[in-house]
């Protein structure tokens, strides 16, 4: 078995097991740590697909920034005793339905994907150069619009937190 295949199976196993542990584990800190491991496994998959830029940014943004803040909040909350999740049947039903729908969409998308177009020539499609070229030439408008969307989200968050203080 070539080494990339071994790595693929190893990373997949890590990703799936950790993703399941995120849901199963009772302690929220462990849950967050498992999610971080899942991100690392997925970043490894990006590496295997030659998308180094995506892998690095995935680690920097998700594992390095977002999950640090998640963990930060969980640790802060844990300071004042055990919060304990209140389970409601309605929530359980809603989340089961939405998760099932997501699974359905993903399965259909995976089944209908046309993989024949993927060729060896696309091997360096994930490098910084090709990504930057396509983002700033072909997809310039959507890129800028999504940047504006993020900016407005940031301004909105600042406004909301200001309101609470006064």
């Amino acid at each position, binding site marked *: 078995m070539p080494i990339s295949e071994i790595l693929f199976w190893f990373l997949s196993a890590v990703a799936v097991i950790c993703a399941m542990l995120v849901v199963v584990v009772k302690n929220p*800190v462990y849950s967050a740590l498992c999610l971080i491991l899942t991100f690392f496994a997925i970043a490894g998959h990006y590496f295997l697909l030659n998308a180094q*830029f995506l892998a690095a940014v995935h*680690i920097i943004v998700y*594992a*390095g920034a977002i999950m640090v803040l998640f*963990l*930060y909040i969980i*640790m802060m909350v844990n300071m004042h005793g055990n919060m304990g999740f209140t389970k409601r049947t309605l929530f359980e039903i809603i989340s089961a339905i939405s998760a099932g729908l997501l699974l359905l969409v993903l399965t259909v998308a995976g089944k209908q994907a046309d993989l024949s177009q993927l060729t060896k020539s696309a091997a360096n499609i994930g490098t*910084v150069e090709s990504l930057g070229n396509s983002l700033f030439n072909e997809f310039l408008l959507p890129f800028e619009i999504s940047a504006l969307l993020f900016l407005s989200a940031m301004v909105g968050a600042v406004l909301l937190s200001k309101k609470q203080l006064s």
Partner: protein
Amino acid sequence: MTVLIFKIILVLSVFGITMLIAMYSTWAERKLSAVMQDRVGPNRAGPLGLLQPLADGIKMFTKEELIPQGSNRFLFIIGPGIAMLTALITGAVIPWGGDVNIGGESFALQITDINIGVLYLFGVVSVGVYGIMIGGWASNNKYSLLGALRASSQMISYEIAMGFSIIAMVMMTGTLSLREIVAQQDAGLANVAYQPLAFLIFMICAFAETNRAPFDLPECETELIGGYHTEYSSMKLGLFLFAEYINMFISSAIMVSFFWGGYNFPFQHELGLSPNALATVQTVVFFGKVFAFIFLFMWVRWTLPRFRYDQLMNLGWKVLLPLSLLNIFLTGVVMYLTGKLN
């Protein structure tokens, strides 16, 4: 196959040198602080106290290990491990010198030259905070937790300005590979001549990222006892402290590679040295520059008082971040005017 053997030797020697430098940084720090405070410093173990780090290491290893009650055993042990791991793996992308020639084959004195080297460094740095966070939380101690929370918010805040300051530099170099960034500084001036503001911002952020004074609030003794490592003893404490010194060494190496020409030195090609001799001299020069920065780190620590926490956050978000954005803008304008765009 020879490449593999060479790389393995390089990895081991980088590991060994990093450890050695971290060990003797503790000695240098104590000697330097002694000089600055008109004291003698360590002078019992060996001549000039040179065996002091060894004595400290033996002490650390043989001390009693305490795991506090009510702490999370697994995470308590893994915390310092993560801190050490992330401190050590940053050395993989740093170019330590030019090419050496062994038996007709040319090898680069760099463990790996990935084309996203800069991003790799940022990824590792951003993950580095987990060691402190996990260790601090697992200690089950309010002071530890506060230290961990301070460390994480501080590192997240300063990472942003750090990243933006590097973007201005990357705009000029047009590459994310450290080897190429260093090689480009061979022909012209060092990057610091073009990006002084970026260097200044990066250096301040490096101080904050390594939790060194004046940004050492996570381990502020007057408020938090020892901060995130309050509950740690024996070599687990040693690993935390060691990781800080390794981080200091590596961030000095990064600053040298990014801004101060890396292993290059003036008139290096006019000396008429053979490639191997040149690479040796380059490595020596590189370490000389790195030691100068380590000295700066220590100098600042024993000169400046600690920031207050709100001052720290204000500096990060209201001064450094806008300045780094301005720097990107200015770099873009100058590049446009001089026709260096495209």
